[in-house]
């Protein structure tokens, strides 16, 4: 039997697939979409087109650093990013450049506790 063909990597021009990493992330995304449909539609479009482009607003979009810089998703260790949806809202995701999949790991419309 012939070995399975290696899966062809998606072309760099194709939009990214945006997927929830966990059932919890799916629930959070769905709730956020119900609460803020326009915001979340725009966010989905951003993630599909340019999840790692921070040129438009470098202080609102960026990779996490240090101990939160990466996260294991399935068998891969991927970079972990954060985007400020609003002053209070955040979304976290792990882009897989090889598969062109954005794994959404968490969505929150309330702000994490500020450091002093």
């Amino acid at each position, binding site marked *: 039997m012939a070995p399975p063909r290696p899966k062809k990597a998606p072309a760099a021009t194709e939009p990214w697939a945006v997927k929830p*990493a*966990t059932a919890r992330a*799916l629930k959070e995304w769905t709730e956020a979409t119900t609460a803020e449909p326009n915001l979340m539609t725009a966010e989905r479009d951003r993630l599909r087109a340019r999840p790692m482009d*921070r040129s438009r607003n470098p202080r609102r979009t960026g990779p996490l650093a240090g101990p939160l810089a990466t996260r*294991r*998703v399935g068998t891969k260790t991927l970079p972990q990013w954060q985007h400020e949806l609003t002053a209070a809202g955040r979304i976290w995701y792990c882009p897989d450049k090889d598969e062109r999949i954005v794994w*959404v790991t968490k969505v929150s419309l309330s702000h994490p*506790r500020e*450091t002093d």
Partner: protein
Amino acid sequence: MRYTGGMRQTTRTYQATDVARRSREVLDSGRAGGTLIRDKDGVVLLLAPAEEVARGEELTEVAGDFVRLHRALGAKSRDVGAYGGFGWLSVFPLEDQRLFAEELEGPLLLALSGGPVEPLRDLISDWRATAELWADEALRAELLEPVDEPLHDVTL
């Protein structure tokens, strides 16, 4: 002679009377880089793009905090104040604080050498955003947790 650290040298010096008589030339010189204007009492003024001066002030501040950070990391005990402008870094374990110091060095030297300052700003911004998350124990645990079986079949 004062230490300049290899920073750009000013190339033109004008007299106070030149400001009125050769205003366009003086302004163009100032726009091109640092220009000195010697006032009638001998005080020398600097004419330079505000952006360059602000950049210099920003880098001086970061470089000072970098030195404070190294002192803090080398101390036996440290409080938040010892970190200067990097006080937010104290929420991390010591090994991550050291990692930040290592990562900061390259972009800081690049910016101090006249290179782009954006990599430095991005690095500090990314670490600071991470510190906010790290300080929240529940959120930290969530963001550290491996995802064993991601939902391949669901598309948002």
